[in-house]
């Protein structure tokens, strides 16, 4: 006599249970080990945000310096030289160009400090002299001081050094000092600047806003 055993379904139940267990385990593992969205790093004590950390004049000059830095970098990549203040005037390049923007934003006095020189370039410096200066090592700095707008600071546009003939310049940082008459710092490396009260301006730009809105840079 043949005995037909009742189908219990136990193996299938067990298989489903195990599958669910594995899925839950995998999910828990992913949640626990996934890289956290780092977001934008918080500003450090020696940094200041451009969006809510600067007054109107500082904000306007910072925006203009960002754009100018791009043009200065292109010019350097093309010619090996730097845009002198005379050339900036000819090119109508803010914030150096003496126009209404310059006037209403404190009439800041700008100086160009060439690599290796680290002293103010005479206003009469010839393009050749400027070009010669770029052959040295060190950063190129546009230093702005003595602004007369309310609550205005002093500024540094520091363009990273390039090894002549071997590298190109592609990094610029902007620094601000609460005192509009802060003297030019002898050393423009970050540690030295921080020690003398300069703060790096961190731009809150479109990329930052897109990251805030959409979670991706």
């Amino acid at each position, binding site marked *: 006599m043949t005995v037909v055993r009742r189908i219990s379904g136990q193996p299938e139940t067990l298989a489903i249970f195990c599958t669910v267990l594995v899925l839950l385990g995998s999910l828990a593992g992913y949640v626990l080990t996934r890289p956290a969205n780092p977001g934008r790093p918080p500003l450090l004590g020696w940094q200041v945000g*451009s*969006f*809510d950390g600067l007054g*109107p*004049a500082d*904000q*306007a000059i*910072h*925006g*203009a310096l*960002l*754009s100018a830095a*791009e*043009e200065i970098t*292109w010019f350097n990549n093309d010619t090996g030289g730097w845009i002198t203040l005379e050339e900036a005037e000819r*090119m*109508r*390049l*803010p914030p150096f*160009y003496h*126009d*209404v*923007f310059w*006037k*209403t*934003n404190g009439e800041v006095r700008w100086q160009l400090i060439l690599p290796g020189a680290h002293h103010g370039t005479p206003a009469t410096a010839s393009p050749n002299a400027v070009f010669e200066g770029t052959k040295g090592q060190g950063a190129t700095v546009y230093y702005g001081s003595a602004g007369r*707008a309310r609550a205005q600071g002093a500024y540094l546009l520091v363009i990273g050094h390039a090894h002549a003939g071997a590298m190109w310049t592609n990094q610029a940082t902007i620094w601000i000092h609460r005192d509009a008459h802060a003297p030019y710092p002898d050393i423009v490396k970050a540690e030295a600047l921080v020690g003398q009260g300069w703060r790096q301006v961190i*731009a*809150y*730009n*479109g*990329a*930052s*806003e*897109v990251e805030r*809105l*959409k979670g991706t840079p």
Partner: protein
Amino acid sequence: MIEGMNGISPGRRRLAIFLMLLGSGAAGQAAAPKRLKVGVTLHPYYSFVANIVRERADVVPLIAGDANPHNYQPQTEDIKRAMTLDALVVNGIGHDEWAFEIVKAAGRKGTLPLIYANASVALIPIGGDQGGAKVVNPHTFVSTTAAIQQVFEITHRLGAIDPDNAAAYRANAAAYTARLRALRAEFMVRFANLDLSSFRCATMHAGYDYLMQEFGLSVTAVIEPRHGVTPTARQLANTIDVIKKANIRVLFTEKYFALGLGKAIEQATGVKVYALSHITDGPYTADRFEVEMRENLNTLATAIESTRP
């Protein structure tokens, strides 16, 4: 005589030569650099890209020129257009959110390179009282300095996508930005003779902080409580109060918006009303940005001149 063809019948030889020529033609076509189709979401970006690429690429507006980008609903034609693009230039910070819906609907999310024009532009808050909050102003394209920064950004990104033309794009961008600076300088001379220190203005739309920043000016009050939102009666009454107390003498309305509200405020406060454009309507042309910015700068100068004692 082509080597290796001896012993082949003349008919087959002709066929072989025809096929070889056809093949070489196809190879030649394949070697020709691809002409980019660059999409844009807003009128200023059309002008920027058209001046950067000139004859080396096609510029494709994503939506019709007379569509209102503030409350746009994507259309089927937009989606079809998005399918054909090689890159898309976007504002991405509040002025063209519909573009992302179009890209998604076109199945191009993740495959269509997006160029965020503002990526390297330092943003500033909307002027006036925003209830104590600092709200990002997305109208970076209504200015010259921030526009120039966007031209640089777009040029960088297009150069990376199309390296064969990168040098040409850069040269074109340099010429274009020099022209924008010349436009700015032209008005700076006119503004130089004006007293800006006591100038106070209100704007209907929060679109002009970057433009005002160019001249060291700021916006004292904004009528719209939020981008594209009409104020309630109470909000309007509060703003009218601010206009009176702050001695605001000029209200800038929108060239492409209805003037009804502006007229009401003019009657209630005595401000003079002028219309500015934030360049988001009409035909797409390469010179559109320059034409409208010239009008804006002219309007601004006229408005300031009108407040002289």
